[in-house]
């Protein structure tokens, strides 16, 4: 049975690669029995959501500003 330290490593890796069938099963069993790791897994998903949210926010504000009137003309010449 894997411990929590090993489980956290796998919970990160499952966001980056396909785990083996054995690792997936082991992790599922572990998170069924361990509420701390079950929460850790949800929190990993939340971190990913937060990052996407931050990127989306930057791009959305850019769109809003472009729609605003009277944006100054480009004045910066390209570097020589």
């Amino acid at each position, binding site marked *: 049975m894997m*411990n*929590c*330290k*090993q489980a*956290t*490593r796998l919970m*990160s*890796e499952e*966001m*980056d*690669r396909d785990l083996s069938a054995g690792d997936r099963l082991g992790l599922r069993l572990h998170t069924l029995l*361990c*509420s*701390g*790791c079950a*929460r*850790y897994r*949800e*929190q*990993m998903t*939340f*971190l*990913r*959501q*937060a*990052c*996407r*949210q*931050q*990127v989306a926010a*930057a*791009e959305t*504000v*850019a*769109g809003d*500003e*472009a729609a*605003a009137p009277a*944006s*100054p*003309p*480009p004045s*910066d010449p*390209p*570097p*020589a």
Partner: protein
Amino acid sequence: MGPSSQIDPTGSATAGRELPPQAADIAAELAGFRREMLRFATLHLRDQASAEDAVQEAMLAALQGADRFGERARLKTWIFAILRNKIVDIIRRRVREPAYEDPLNEIDEADFDPLFQGNGHWQRDTRPSDWGNPERSFENRSFWAVFDACMNRLPPGTARVFMMREMLGLETDEICAELSMSSNNCWVVLHRARMGLRLCLDQRWFAGSGGQAA
């Protein structure tokens, strides 16, 4: 001896290449994106001068390629895609600099040992607690200030790998190739970054009154 510094008249390296006629049409619109592009680039590069360079290069590339751009409605998506590529270019150049530190050496695995008992299970007081409905924090400005602060507390190379994965949306294969790391080391760095970021948010947001109020 072959020609040394002869410039190919059709070469793309020539400065002052003529812009296509479509460039004038989209230049003003692109200028409207400038400030947010700069913020996006600064987020990734953590250095104002490099961020300016990335935005400048992206703008120029967009204007030079204006004749290949058809759908005006997708201008924003297009310019940000170009910007992302420029950011990756700059990161790639940095990796070749002598001062570059291998992200693997930035955080010691043992730094997280105090979270766990000897048998590898959570300590009673470090076992992840319930964050409630954490998505509600997205609407709270203070949350994003804490999020930025936590990101800034990660060592620079570790933060870079994490952001290439989660904000630029690169696959780990691509990150490993850009940074000349093995896949395994890439996963280790991502794991440490997530561990650190989770712990920081837990301590500075969700455990405090901010999380309760959000």
